[in-house]
């Protein structure tokens, strides 16, 4: 490793990659929790098969694909942190584009540390405890895959480099001797290519006065709606939707694996999982909005009411929840439709929880979960309560507006915004 690469890599490891490593701890906790909840013999057997699939001979490549998915998720979490600021002042440093890329790849690979640690632990367990022979190409293939994943995830790079890394990932997952050899060669080629220097900035044409005036949207609230949506962004919304995937998957798996279940139970399972999914999604999205939207206290001086502002937030946070209802609909669509009644309630709840949440340990999610889960599950168990929940929505909106009015908009403003764009940062980091 040349000196500039080492210096840059060390910098990334101490900055963005270090922060990104937190996701490893979160992942380890999740995996431990899931296996801890599973019945003992089943969980151990599954875990054994998984370990063998990673480091020993196995007919299926499922465990390696799961490993690749975990690596990709960890790498994707690391990319914004590692790349933060690299297109600014750091461009003035005497380092060429290839060195920058290599350092970033090294840092993003390091952020997947838990995968490498797991590989070593699995190899020891499989060899010493299970007495299974180790498959060395497969073991070597995992770090190659991690580097290739890091290379693929890097933003703004030529399609050729990305394609080389993508093929390397596929070959590393396959895990045979020749495939890992090909993967290694492809990764070396992609890291030896010279990426282009940054593309020249193409200025957008300034709008003419008439064009600007004609751009009037139907309502100024729609402008704010658009700005709020931009603040949360599609990517964060997709991340939040993943939080709903687990309860939705539960609904699907429970009903598909137990066809003998009475219809009343299927309905209840669909409703409960839908309710939990709705609240998980909304709570995660609310925390994302809390972290990404800087306070705009000046906007409070404009002629609109606090109620207007919370309604806009409730729409932005509530409307995407329809995705959860759609996801549960294949299990039992009338139950999923019924849970639509909870959507306005959850949207209003989140809009209220958002206010004053910056100083809370769990951000806005704590309040969303504490109120939202019992309310949603209550509707799931006693569907007649849907009417009550709907009737409560205007009251919740007024409560949210009161919180908006009472919030200290200009106190500790800098704490409310995650300048580093770190979604794990809520308020007291």
């Amino acid at each position: 490793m040349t000196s500039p690469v080492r210096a840059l890599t060390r910098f990334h490891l101490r900055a963005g990659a270090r922060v990104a490593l937190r996701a490893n701890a979160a992942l380890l906790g999740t995996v431990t929790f899931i296996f801890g909840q599973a019945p003992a013999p089943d969980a151990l057997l599954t875990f054994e098969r998984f370990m063998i699939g990673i480091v020993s001979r196995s007919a299926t490549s499922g465990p390696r694909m799961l490993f690749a998915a975990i690596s990709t998720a960890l790498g994707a979490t690391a990319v914004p942190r590692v790349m933060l600021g690299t297109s600014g002042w750091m461009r003035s440093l005497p380092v060429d584009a290839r060195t920058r890329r290599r350092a970033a790849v090294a840092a993003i690979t390091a952020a997947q540390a838990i995968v490498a640690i797991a590989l070593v632990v699995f190899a020891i367990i499989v060899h010493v405890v299970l007495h299974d022979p180790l498959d060395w190409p497969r073991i070597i293939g995992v770090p190659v895959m991690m580097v290739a994943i890091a290379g693929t995830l890097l933003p703004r790079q030529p399609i050729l480099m990305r394609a080389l890394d993508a093929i390397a990932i596929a070959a590393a997952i396959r895990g045979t001797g020749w495939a890992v050899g090909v993967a290694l060669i492809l990764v070396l080629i992609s890291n030896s290519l010279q990426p282009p220097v940054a593309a020249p900035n193409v200025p957008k044409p300034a709008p003419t006065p008439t064009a600007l005036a004609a751009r009037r949207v139907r309502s100024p609230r729609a402008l704010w709606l658009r700005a709020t949506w931009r603040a949360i962004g599609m990517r964060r919304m997709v991340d939040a939707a993943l939080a709903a995937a687990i309860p939705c998957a539960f609904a699907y798996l429970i009903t598909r694996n137990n066809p003998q279940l009475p219809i009343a139970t299927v309905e209840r399972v669909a409703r409960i999982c839908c309710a939990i999914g709705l609240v998980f999604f909304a709570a995660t999205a609310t925390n994302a909005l809390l972290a990404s939207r800087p306070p705009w206290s000046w906007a409070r001086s404009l002629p609109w009411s606090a109620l207007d502002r919370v309604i806009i937030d409730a729409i932005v946070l509530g409307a995407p929840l329809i995705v959860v209802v759609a996801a549960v609909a294949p299990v039992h669509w009338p139950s999923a439709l019924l849970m639509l009644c909870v959507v306005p309630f959850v949207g209003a709840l989140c809009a209220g929880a958002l206010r004053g949440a910056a100083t809370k340990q769990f951000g806005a999610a704590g309040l969303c979960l504490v109120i939202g889960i019992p309310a949603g599950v209550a509707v799931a168990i006693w569907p007649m309560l849907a009417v009550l929940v709907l009737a409560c929505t205007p009251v919740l909106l007024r409560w949210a507006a009161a919180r908006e009015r009472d919030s200290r908009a200009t106190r500790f403003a800098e704490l409310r915004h995650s300048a580093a764009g770190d979604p794990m940062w809520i308020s007291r980091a």
Partner: protein
Amino acid sequence: MITFDDVRFSYVADRAALTIQRLTIDPGLTLVVGPNGAGKSTMLRLIAGVERPTTGTVCIDGHDLWKEEVAARRGLAYVPEHPELTPYATIGDTALLVAGLRGVDPLEAVDALHRAGLLPLAHRTVRELSMGQRRRALLATALIGDARVLVLDEPLETMDQEMRAFVHELVRERRAAGAAVLVATHEIEPFAGDADAVIAVRDGVVHHESIGGVPAGDRLAHIISLARGAEADG
């Protein structure tokens, strides 16, 4: 006209940042003076409806800022010390938002951006502007509609000579139109000649004095003495 009635404001419990028993601010130019941290900006935020008083009421033209939110803010224009603009909307979007909420023609937004010299930058977001340009953008929003209450917090800070002249012109224009113009500033001299009243803030307590009767030649010295008194006490 702005009225404070038994207002107390705290950032943290049991520690008042500002206490105002009763205060009426009439149309004309009112300078808000006092040392750093005395509560000038807090007072302007209370008038602008950015912060809600812990107790008491703030009314603009008889409308309670927190009960008749829209009516009270209809003629209000606030330019904070720190240019708070959302990074998720362009300057053009922000100007159109203000025009839409104030119920004026969007061409007024275009005209305001033009007057502030920002029309060629209307497609940019706050992240693509310099600090001075961000403040210009907020000044531009103050030009949209006929503001009856104009609240300026340190309006000359980071401004070049051209924009300083622009601020003075804006203040004189709104004052002549019968608006209540409040300026919190440490640069007293540029505004002294036009000032009708002074609010000296000392350690969260305000002292209001009309200086309409003070001869024009003595105003600057009089305001400075009030400000120094505040600073000495503060």
